[in-house]
């Protein structure tokens, strides 16, 4: 892995189409910010982001209740504005989201919770969305919390 860089031509991925998987939480990790920088640069370069998938702690990025101080980057807002402007679908994994208290109206009703907090345009769906990306020919990039 370390001593051999795999050329892009050796992979089955289509050049210029990316799926981003974010597993690091905002404010606990740099993952969402790094992913946003990558996504912005990719779109600016004419590449396509076909899906953003939030998994594990990454689902916190889809919260509509985060209210960071005004002199700090509002990661959830920056991401949702970027997604809306570029019409990129974004999905939070349902199992990860329910565990961590991130729900839309439907799940809030289903589990009789007092509120819903999923920010537009994020949706809640299963890992099948990620499997769909794996089975496609898009290149999947993971943004983890690091250690």
């Amino acid at each position: 892995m370390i001593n051999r860089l795999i050329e892009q031509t050796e992979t089955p991925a289509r050049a210029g189409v990316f799926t981003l998987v974010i597993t690091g939480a905002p404010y606990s990790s740099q993952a969402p910010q790094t992913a946003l920088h990558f996504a912005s640069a990719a779109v600016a370069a004419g590449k396509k982001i076909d899906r953003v998938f939030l998994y594990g702690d990454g689902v916190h990025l889809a919260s509509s209740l985060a209210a960071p101080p005004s002199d700090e980057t509002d990661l959830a807002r920056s991401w949702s504005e970027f997604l809306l402007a570029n019409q990129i679908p974004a999905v939070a994994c349902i199992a990860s989201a329910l565990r961590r208290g991130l729900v839309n109206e439907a799940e809030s009703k289903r589990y009789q919770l007092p509120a819903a907090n999923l920010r537009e345009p994020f949706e809640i769906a299963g890992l099948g969305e990620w499997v769909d990306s794996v089975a496609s020919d898009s290149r999947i990039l993971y943004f983890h919390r690091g250690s």
Partner: protein
Amino acid sequence: MSTLIIIDQPPYGSWEGREALDMAFSLAAFDQPVTLMFCGAGVNWLRKGQNAGKVGQKSVERNLAAAPIFGVEALLACTEACNRYGLTQTDLLDGVTVTAVGPELTSRYDHVTFAG
């Protein structure tokens, strides 16, 4: 598209390994070939006789025992990490293959991902 999921986090300390296992099971459920590789502290997932009740968790042993039933093609353990943690084949769950991790292994898969 064959996928190798590498779990290098110890069990019970975080949910990352568990959630990586869910990823593997999802791929298998959709008939996508998937193999799990445990390396670093991740090899501790494969110990026999885990008792996680005292930390308020369910043992991951049962989940892993179910992996072949759900269609996960192989459970691999890194040779070097097993040596570091003093794990021999008899300490490991049934059906685990101990192997070296490196480009020879990863290049056999279309898609390689870490648990976090």
